[in-house]
């Protein structure tokens, strides 16, 4: 049975969205993207390096295979984020954008108020907005009301690899918003991705969890399998937790 999900008018079968930063080389980027099975990949927008003629990340991303998701990493105000996405639109991209408005350089925690403001303005301009936000239900509701296609609460600080710090909050968000919930940031290893999916997230977004591994390509595969395993476990419905043992071998017919 196919287990696809929808993001606006796009039907996706992969539930992993990967970033393209921090890899050792473009070859490694290419191999990790392929091993992850991702259909959507994030990119950032920066000044052109006028001193280099080297190939850029765009050379590593086959636009026929991957949907580009430009982000607003490094933006600290709604105005900066919107300006960045106007430039991304001029660069020619798919309609989806990853909105992030950072509130603090040390934690990279989002400025949720500015994110909601930016989301409202971007939706009015026709952007399809996927916002990075705190694992806070009310913020997620405001972002849903603003017209965002999904909400992307963090699991832990960006690049920290600390895993799902507050699974309860993530579950409350999933139960109480009508748009897809994608955990974004904090996934450090395969089990973290599986937990996010078991909670009922529709997808997981990660970068450093893969690029920061000793063997990023192998970790990309591990993440793909974990997302798949976690998703299947969620669909299967886990057994109820019990405080005491319950033998799984028959208790009748024991030899005496």
């Amino acid at each position, binding site marked *: 049975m196919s287990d696809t999900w929808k993001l606006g008018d796009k039907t996706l079968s992969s539930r992993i969205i990967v970033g393209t930063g921090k890899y050792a080389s473009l070859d490694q980027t290419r191999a990790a993207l392929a091993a992850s099975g991702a259909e959507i990949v994030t990119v950032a927008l920066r000044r*052109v390096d006028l001193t280099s003629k080297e190939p850029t990340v765009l050379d590593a991303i086959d636009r026929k295979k991957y949907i580009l998701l430009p982000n607003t990493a490094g933006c600290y105000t709604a105005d900066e984020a919107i300006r960045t996405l106007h430039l991304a639109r001029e660069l020619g991209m798919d309609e989806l954008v990853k909105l992030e408005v950072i509130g603090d350089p040390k934690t990279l925690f989002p400025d949720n108020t500015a994110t909601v403001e930016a989301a409202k303005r971007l939706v009015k301009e026709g952007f399809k907005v996927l916002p990075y936000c705190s694992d806070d239900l009310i913020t997620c509701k405001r972002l849903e009301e603003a017209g965002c296609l999904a909400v992307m609460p963090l699991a832990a600080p960006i690049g920290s690899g600390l895993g799902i710090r507050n699974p309860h909050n993530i579950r409350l968000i999933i139960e109480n918003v009508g748009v897809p919930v994608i955990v974004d940031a904090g996934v450090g290893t395969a089990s973290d991705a599986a937990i996010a999916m078991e909670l009922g997230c529709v997808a997981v977004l990660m970068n450093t969890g893969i690029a920061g591994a000793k063997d990023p390509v192998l970790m990309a595969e591990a993440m793909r399998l974990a997302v798949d395993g976690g998703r299947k476990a969620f669909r299967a419905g886990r057994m109820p937790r019990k405080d005491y043992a319950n033998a799984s071998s028959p208790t009748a017919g024991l030899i005496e």
Partner: protein
Amino acid sequence: MSTSIDVVINGQPRKIEEGTTVSVLLDQLGLGERRVAVERNREIVPRAVHASTMLAAGDHLELVTFVGGGS
């Protein structure tokens, strides 16, 4: 003889020939084939008018592209 004008490109002061268009500048910088978005004095210059947009003294240009990134 052509005169040169001062502009700022990605934060760096540069001299360019008077009458240079955005397209010519991108070619001179070796970016003609690259996917680059151009902002001039904080206004986007759409690709369709790169060839007809002439730069003026004091212009501040931002030339940007996609780079690897996650969050």
